[in-house]
């Protein structure tokens, strides 16, 4: 059945976070969003919280621990490796795409230029994950 998701959004850009929240606020589902400003902060949240998020949305280009480093850390952690992670980035660089897939991702979204297109793709991704069953940690 369709359900509300616990989403960890790892994104350093303030306006990108605004874009995401504005999109979410117009959805029928009430998802629970946890924000992290970089990979380091995201790891702290994951290590310290009792329950894990259903889904991680991950930016690649971030200070401190970047998206790829973060991805590689959680994929090598037995406790965290099952969390589906969707990349949200402005880079369609082939090396980035290949590296992410190699580490294991549940999707790779290149942010469209227009906000309306962006909203549409976020909606589609979340709509899909709403209907999924997750490994409960």
């Amino acid at each position: 059945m369709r359900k509300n998701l616990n989403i960890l959004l790892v994104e350093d850009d303030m306006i990108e976070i605004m874009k995401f929240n504005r999109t979410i606020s117009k959805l029928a589902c009430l998802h629970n969003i946890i924000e992290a400003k970089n990979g380091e902060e995201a790891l702290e949240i994951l290590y310290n919280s009792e329950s894990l998020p259903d889904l991680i949305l991950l930016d690649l280009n971030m200070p401190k621990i970047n998206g790829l480093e973060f991805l590689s850390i959680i994929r090598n952690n037995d406790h965290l490796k099952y969390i589906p992670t969707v990349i949200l980035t402005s880079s369609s660089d082939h090396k980035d795409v290949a590296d992410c897939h190699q580490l294991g991702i549940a999707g790779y979204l290149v942010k469209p230029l227009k906000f309306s297109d962006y909203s549409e793709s976020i909606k589609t991704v979340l709509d899909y994950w709403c209907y999924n069953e997750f490994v409960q940690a």
Partner: protein
Amino acid sequence: MHQKEQLLQKLKHQNEQLNDYAHLVSHDLKSSLRNLSALLAWVKEDCIEKIGAESVYNLNLMEAKIEKMDQFLEDIINYSEIGATSLKITTIDLNKELTKITESIHIPLNISIIVKGDLPVLKGDARRLRQVFQNLISNAVNFNDKEKGLVEVGVEEAEDFYTFSVKDNGQGIPKEYHEKIFKIFTTLGYQEKSTGMGLSVVKRVLDLYGGEIWLESEVLKGTTFYFTIPKKI
């Protein structure tokens, strides 16, 4: 001799750095543009009732400029990637590739694209080769000014290489521009959206392949671009 090698090494290194730099800067700028574009969309959404028609018009112009700049950055990224990564050689069926390409280009109803005869199956880097055909064909489509636009893709086989042609019945290119159009950022300004990078990408890919490109054109009547791809890379 030793000195020459050192110099080459140094140049190669500098070239790589320059490519990385172009890449990095373009991506950062692209991110900022995404921000701007969203903010602009919100201002429009929230204020469209309150501001006058002139301001709406200006906001739309801003939006169009942002779009163009984004395309520009995309082209720079593409351009800097060529040569920065080595060619990935696979076997390519050009007939299939061409179908994919024509499907990916927006073609107005009054323009038709015809592939004459069978295209070869050859060894090459699919992405790069696609770029060559895609840029030449989309130029032929976008700049076409005729009521019934026609774009023809053809090929002739020689012993060591293929000569491909992309022919259009568009507005033609004056002789004095035949070399200049391959230079980066050069556009003849027929179209608001062009960034002047399409043909420089084509040229750069063909340089990498050891191919050549030239054109025949008659002003007002049309242009044919020819390019060669060696069979052995």
